[in-house]
Every structure is written in C-alpha cells, then in structure tokens.
C-alpha cells in the first residue's frame, strides 16, 4: 500500500470519523468545534514553520482576516455563507501576498514583522472611524447562524488540511520545502526555485488560517476584533506544533488534542496556573525536546506519519 494512503488511513480517517460522531454523544459542540479549529490552525502553522522554518508570530492575522472577510461579505453583500467562506480564504491569501516582502528578512525579524503586521490589521479593523464597514471596536453580530452546517464545514476544512499535510509529507514539493529549510543556498543550486516554493507554502498556510477564520465567524456569529486577532491562537498553534512535532502529520494533531484537552480540563478551573504550566511547558520543550513528542517515537524507530 502506498505510503500516503497508509498515512491517510492512520491519521485523516480516524480524526474525521471521531469528530463527526462526537457531537451526537457529547453535547458541548462549541468545545468540539474549538478542537477542530485548533487542529486546523496547528496544521496550517505546520505547513509554514515545519516545512520552511519560518515562524509567523502573527499567524492569527490570517485567521482574523478570514473572519472579517466572511463577516463583511455576509453583512454588506448578503452573500450565502459558502460564498462568504471563499471570500474569507481570498482575504487571507491577499494579506499573505502583501506580506511576502517580509521573506527578505530572516528568523526573528520575520516573526516580529509578521506579528506587527497582524497587530496593525487588528488596529485598522477595530478603529471606530471604520465603524460603518467593520463595526469597529463594537464587535460583529451576524445573522447567519447554522451550527450544524458550519460544524460540518469546519470538519471538511480540517480534513482538507490534513490531506494537504500528508501530501506535503510524501511529495517532492514537501521534500523541496524541507531542503529549503535546511539550506536555501544548496537547495537553490540543486535546481529548486526557492522563492516560488516558499511563497506557495506561505499562501497555503494563510489559506488554511483564512478558511478557519471564516468558519469560526460563521459558527460563533458574535465576536469582537480582539477575539479573532487574539495572539492566543498563534500561541496555541505554535505550542501544539512544537509539542507534537513539526513537519509531521500526527504531531500537530497529537499536540492539539492533548494540550487543548488539558487546557479545557485544567484551565477552566485554575487559569493562572494554566498560563504558568503552558509557559513552563514551552520552555521545557524548547530546551529538552525541540522536535516534539513525535521525535521520541521516531527515535524508537517508528515511522510516524
């Protein structure tokens, strides 16, 4: 059986099936929905960080752009939700295109610039002078509210995202990206079009976050700018990927399920301690296990998707 089919069966199918069945047995659907969003964002970040080594600390900017793209389309054009989702994706991709010059910078500079860009977008969107268009700081309240359909859409987006990462893991394109991450100069000499491949990965990553943002707006229908531009989303995505293991398929999924699960179990009752635990966890991971849990498994010889 080809490797990627095996990967599909081990990772994609169980996740989708589980999250499709769970709503009928566990009634806090919003929590399940949040799990799906977390996993989607983690995989999206995985595409850019795991495969190219760039860490967009303002990743939530695409999420917010998607959420607002969706909302503005629904509010001003009275568009049906599925069309609005397409606009959400487009909004995120446009933002990513605008930010491509940032690739000239390296490492930390890129991350900070990206963070600044996301925060700048937040300030623009929440400005009261733009209240007519974006409702400014007073928040959005949408009339399209369809928890079942939006949940299904989210699940579909997650499935597509995981499929994409599986493809990356098993294709030439993915290998090219990893080569670029290790050593761009040698990769260039080997004939890889460094700039183009990197931009494609960047746009894909943004697309994922944009779709996630759009479907989030659809599901919750009431939110403030700070909600969808909250740096918490980026933090979660980064920690999940780090914890699980970057450049793999299961890493971010594992990371999201375990850590977000702990967050909801522990964090709800003692959130301050939770911030402490997360912070300490990040520090510990970076110092002792920078390649995540999956790397432990790989060290023992298991071929993890």
């Amino acid at each position, binding site marked *: 059986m080809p490797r990627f089919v095996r990967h599909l069966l081990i990772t994609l199918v169980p996740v989708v099936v589980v999250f499709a069945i769970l709503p009928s047995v566990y009634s806090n659907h919003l929590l399940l929905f*949040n799990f799906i969003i977390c996993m989607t964002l983690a995989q999206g970040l995985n595409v850019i960080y795991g495969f190219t080594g760039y860490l967009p600390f303002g990743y939530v900017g695409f999420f917010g752009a998607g959420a607002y793209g969706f909302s503005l389309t629904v509010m001003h054009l009275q568009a049906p939700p599925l069309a609005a989702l397409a606009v959400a994706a487009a909004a995120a991709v446009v933002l990513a295109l605008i930010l491509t010059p940032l690739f000239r910078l390296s490492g930390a500079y890129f991350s900070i610039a990206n963070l600044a860009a996301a925060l700048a977008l937040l300030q623009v969107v929440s400005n009261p002078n733009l209240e007519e268009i974006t409702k400014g700081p*007073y928040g959005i309240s949408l009339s399209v509210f369809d928890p079942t359909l939006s949940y299904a859409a989210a699940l579909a987006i997650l499935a597509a995202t995981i499929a994409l990462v599986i493809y990356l893991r098993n294709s030439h394109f993915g290998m090219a990206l990893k080569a670029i991450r290790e050593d761009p100069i040698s990769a260039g000499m080997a004939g890889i079009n460094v700039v183009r491949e990197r931009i494609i990965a960047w746009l894909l990553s943004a697309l994922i976050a944009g779709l996630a943002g759009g479907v989030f707006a659809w599901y919750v229908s009431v939110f403030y700018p700070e*909600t969808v531009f*909250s740096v*918490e989303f980026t933090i979660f995505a980064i920690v999940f990927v780090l914890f699980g293991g970057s450049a793999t398929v299961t890493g971010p999924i594992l990371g999201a399920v375990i850590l977000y699960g702990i967050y*909801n179990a522990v964090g709800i009752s003692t*959130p301050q301690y939770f911030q402490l635990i997360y912070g300490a966890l990040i520090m510990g991971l970076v110092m002792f296990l920078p390649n995540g849990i999956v790397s432990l498994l790989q060290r023992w010889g298991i071929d993890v998707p």
Partner: protein
Amino acid sequence: MVRLSIFAALLASVTATAQAADAPAEIKLGTLYASAGRYASISLPVHYGLKLWIDQQNAEGGVYVKAFDKKIPLKLIAYDDQSNTATAATLYNQLITQDKVDILISDSGSVLTSVAVPIARDHKMFLFDQTGTGATFFTPDNPYIALMADPVSSIWPKPLADFLTHDGPGLGIKRVAILYATNDFTGTQAAAVRKFIKESNSGVEIVYDQGVPTETSNYTVLLNNIRASNPDAVVHLGYAANDIAFLRNVQDSGIKFKFLFCIYPGTENELLEKNLGNGPLNYVFTYVTSSQMSYQTNFGMPLKEFREAWDKKYGDAKVEFGFNSVAGYTTALVLEKTLATATSLDQLELRKAVFAQSGNLKTLDGTFELDPTGAQIGESTPLGQLVLDGDHLKLVTIWPHELANGKPIYPRP
C-alpha cells in the same frame, strides 16, 4: 366528617409527597467570572456579591422555590473566562449543555455578556444579565434576557446630560468636551450623552469629541488638546484603568478643568482612591451609584447591612467593595423574588416572574424596572460631586433636584 378530613389530609400529603418527589435536590446556578484580564476589576466584585447571597441562603436551608413550595439548596457552578470572549462562549455553552444549569447568569460587563446573548437565545435559556448594558442586547424578538442591576447604557448618562443642559447654562456651561474609550460600554454612553445634548436645544455645544482606544494609558497630549478647545465642562468616559490614568495625568500636568466628570470615581470609588489618593478626585463629578446612596428597600438587605455582611465575609480578600458588589447582590435578590413567584422552573415562566417584579421591587440598588424588551430603565444613578471634607472625600448628590443634598461647586477653585 372525620373521614372527609382524613381523606383530605391523605390527599394533601400525597400531593405534597408527589410535589416533593418532583423537586430537584438543588437549584443549579451557572455563571462566569473573570479573575484576570481587562474586566477582572468589574467582574470579581459582582461575583462575590452573588456568592454572598448564595452562602446566606444555603445557611438557612436554601432558597424558597414556589414551584415546589419548599426551600431548596443552591449550587453554584462558576467558571473563569479570564476576560476572554471566546473562552466565555465555550463556557456558557458548557454550563447549558453539560452542566444543565437551571438558571443562567452572565458575567459582568457588556463585552463578556455579549457572547451569552445568542447562546442563551439559541438554547432557549433565560439570561439573567447582571451588568451588561449594551443597548443592542435588548430586542423585541428576543425574550430570553433581562438586565438586572444597571440602567441600559442608552439612558444611563441621562442625569449627567440633564444637569449639563438644564442647570449648566445658568452656571455658565456652554462648551462641553467629550473624551471616551471606544468600546461597547463607554462608546454607547458617549453616544447617549451626545444625543441628549443635541436634542436638548439648550445652547450647550460640544467643542471636542474624540474616541481613543481602550488600551490608552497616556492622556498627556490629549489633555493639552482638550484644554486648547477651551471647554467649560469635560466628560471622560472610560473604564477604571482609563479613569485612573486620566486623572493622574490631569494632576501631573497641573491642569484644572472647571467641570470634570468620570464614571469610576463613583462606581469603584475605593479602587480609585487607593490608586490616586484624594487630590486628583477632589471636585470631580461622577455617578452616585447605589454603593454610595442608601435607598429605601422593600426587599433584601439595605446598603449598610450589606456592607457589614461584605466586610465580615470578604474583609481581607483582594476584591474592592463598590457598586459592582451591590450589582451582584441585586441580581441575587431578583433571583430570590423570581424563584418565590414562578410556578415552575420553565425558562419562560421564570421570565414572567422576573417581569412581574418590574416596578414593584425596591432594593439597595434602587427601583427595579424593565421595559418590554428586558432593558433596565430603573435603578438610575444621580449625578454627584466629590468634595474634600477634612481628610476624606464626600459625595454630594447634585441632580436630580429631588434627590440633591448640596449645590455644585462650579467652576472648581
């Protein structure tokens, strides 16, 4: 005869047991609070006020529930949303779908309440909105909400605007400057002030009208600009942190505005006095909230008793006593009355019972009065002025005249 009475007694005991058998072992109250983040300082006091009532009731065996004609203990299920709206939404959902609470009570403030409104409505649960005053929450097509302890923000500033437009011209107030933080709460108050002034045709004009981000903590340049517009009265509408920074900057710059209004010196006066001392607060106009005013009550503890109970229970905690503590207790009193009136725990029945209190319930927060959409139009807060008396600040009520116990000091010396 005897047989009839025995029969009647048997029948009564059977129905009583049947009713008692239907009664739940406890009434589950679900709510959220913020222990950290931007809204913690207005959320924790509300939460503590509610908890005080719950502990009081449980010490006496529970709250009286008319639907089952007995006292049932209260169980509080409360989660911490950390001032984060997304977390709050998940938690509200959890309370309704997992914990299956009987009564849903919102967190404090418009922002943290806003996410509850559609969730409550969707699950057909009546939302006891404690202090979320955003006017958009109350629409004719949503019966599942009512505002408990604050006047709705579109009419809250009316005493301030009325004073400026009625008494103002006589005192020489013609030019008003408005500085507000751009968020649901203060933004809508600013809009209301603007509207009342414009509609009053009193000759009072607005010479400065600016919104700044809620995170603003430095007003030095803004103050200079306000001063340049030469106002007779300055109105600052922000949250507690904004008021603290604003008043401090006013003092540091040496500027003395003839009339200065801020919200939180009245609402959370202990917090502000702790951070600013008496100097910056002297001559400041503010709302006289129920934590500063002793209303005549026909139900529940009046202010003095509540303060004593609070100090006894929370004296050493890190939570300030202020208007928000009263707000939590007010919600509790409405709840108590509701449970004592409603014929069942069905959510629309509860709604009927809540609305039945409108106009009849007088608590330490004032008169509870709702309009048909559930917005609070009672419990209004008069305008007052803080004046230094010896070494502590006294709050003198200025407007409306029927409640006034002093004259305004204008312009400030």
